[in-house]
């Protein structure tokens, strides 16, 4: 009798970041701009000098802002890049205004619609909202008609990713991942985003057995599992730790706001590697 081999998908942060090519379409999970964002992974991408990334998120935050500040991003495809109640994302604001990055702004509902389409292997999904606005026009969304009722609908094009990276509360070594325990408000759309990607990387606070009722990504859907405790810092991680507001307010934001000031931040807080937290 053969015992099933349980695949071990764990790898180092460096090896996992090595799965991301320059110019990749990469999506980051997370709930708002400072919650559950895979920052350890973002910092590793910067240390490895990745460039030309097309940064996707359903909502984005400090992940996108830091990549932009490091010159690693070519575009953003998301419905939000900001730091929540702490304000705007300075690197994003500057790059968007100067045209240094391309901004492809979706609404939150439209971008989930694009990922829903990919999840169902559809090239588009019809949609009823975001009508008669400049957002849909700017995105070049076409109109379709229901063949039964004649209703005109927006056609949201499927959004595909090369890589998705999610910071999870817990994951086993095979890849069964509990993204959020208890469930927070974006856990299920993080799974939508992951399922739109060819390669899925889970960074987990803890590696270990996961309650089968709380598995939000199945091992088979995950390509790499990285042990990244504290990996959402300086953002928050579910019930594990809160936002490091002092760091963002007193260190991150001033550096990001100063023209040319961000390289000092990167030298001090990124290039020297992850600290244990």
């Amino acid at each position, binding site marked *: 009798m053969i015992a099933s081999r349980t695949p071990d998908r764990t790898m180092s942060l460096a090896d996992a970041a090595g799965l991301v090519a320059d110019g990749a379409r990469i999506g980051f999970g997370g709930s708002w701009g400072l919650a559950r964002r895979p920052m350890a992974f973002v910092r590793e991408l910067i240390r490895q000098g990745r460039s030309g990334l097309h940064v996707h998120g359903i909502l984005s935050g400090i992940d996108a802002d830091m990549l932009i500040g490091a010159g690693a991003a070519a575009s953003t495809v998301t419905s939000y890049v900001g730091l929540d109640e702490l304000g705007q994302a300075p690197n994003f604001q500057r790059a968007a205004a100067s045209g240094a990055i391309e901004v492809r702004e979706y609404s939150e*509902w439209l971008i989930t619609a694009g990922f829903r389409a990919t999840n169902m292997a559809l090239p588009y999904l019809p949609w009823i909202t975001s009508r008669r606005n400049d957002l849909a026009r700017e995105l070049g969304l076409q109109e379709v008609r229901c063949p039964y009722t004649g209703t005109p609908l927006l056609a949201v094009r499927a959004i595909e990713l090369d890589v998705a990276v999610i910071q999870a509360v817990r994951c086993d070594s095979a890849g069964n991942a509990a993204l959020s325990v208890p469930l927070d408000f974006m856990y299920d759309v993080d799974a939508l985003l992951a399922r739109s990607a060819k390669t899925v990387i889970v960074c987990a606070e803890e590696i270990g057995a996961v309650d089968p009722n709380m598995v939000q990504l199945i091992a088979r859907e995950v390509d790499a599992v990285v042990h990244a405790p504290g990996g959402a810092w300086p953002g928050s991680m579910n019930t594990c730790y809160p936002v490091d507001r002092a760091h963002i307010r007193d260190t991150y934001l001033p550096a990001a706001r100063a023209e040319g000031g961000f390289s000092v931040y990167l030298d001090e807080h990124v290039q020297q590697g992850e600290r244990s937290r």
Partner: protein
Amino acid sequence: MSAPASSPPPDVMMAVAMSRQVRDGDWVSHGASVPLAGAALLIALEVHVSDVDVWIQGCVSPTDRSLVDALIAPERLYPTTAAHMSQTEIINFSLRGSSTFQFLRPLQIDAHGNVNVSVVEREGRPPLRFHGVAVGDAINAVRRTCLYVTEHTPRVFAQTLAFRTGAGHDDGSDWRPGLGLHDAGPASVITPLCVLGFDQQRRLEVRSLHPGATLEQVREQTGFELGVSPKLHETPPPSEEELEALERVDPERIRLLEFRETRDAVLDKLAGLG
């Protein structure tokens, strides 16, 4: 119209006026990082309504009514919630027309309640780009949206929007039928000066002036011709009950985060909390 000796501060008057827009039976979908709207919602729950459901940070009707928790420590709501409702489900729920009320804060509003949340034009410099998040969808799907702005200026109430993030009442026509949309859209606008509603032509009109504000002042600060409701009145000042509720749910005055002048002071406070 006589102004009282001391008018209530705009954050108080706005929170209270906004709270009165919530109705019994409502399902209120609540956004993040909008503590003024949060204060209004909590006042409503404390004073005005008894059977409202709230969706906030993925939680359905948590019994934790602390504004600061909702803003910066959603994980404290989790143990007090009746149910978690995922992002996909709340979107579907709203698409089906079941979400009946939501506060939305635009950067600009035109005469028909169309909104800009995306672009700030700057003289001699490229425009700044912000994000609409779900505004362009919610304003189409949520049955009644209450728009609010913390500055009442001609730049905010603009003849022409820099960018239309969301269609409110479009050109004033009844444009929703036939597009798969329910009857929905902006129902009111609350500013530091007044409460606005929509007339029969779905054009903004002044419904009530906050204590201390004048019609001339409102018209001067509005970039388009503004009608006046035949029932124009003074916004009833905050009641004792409303003021007590506000003090109870927001003793730290986190709501002031949404006002330009007090924003930094609130951030200082937040750094010491949570």
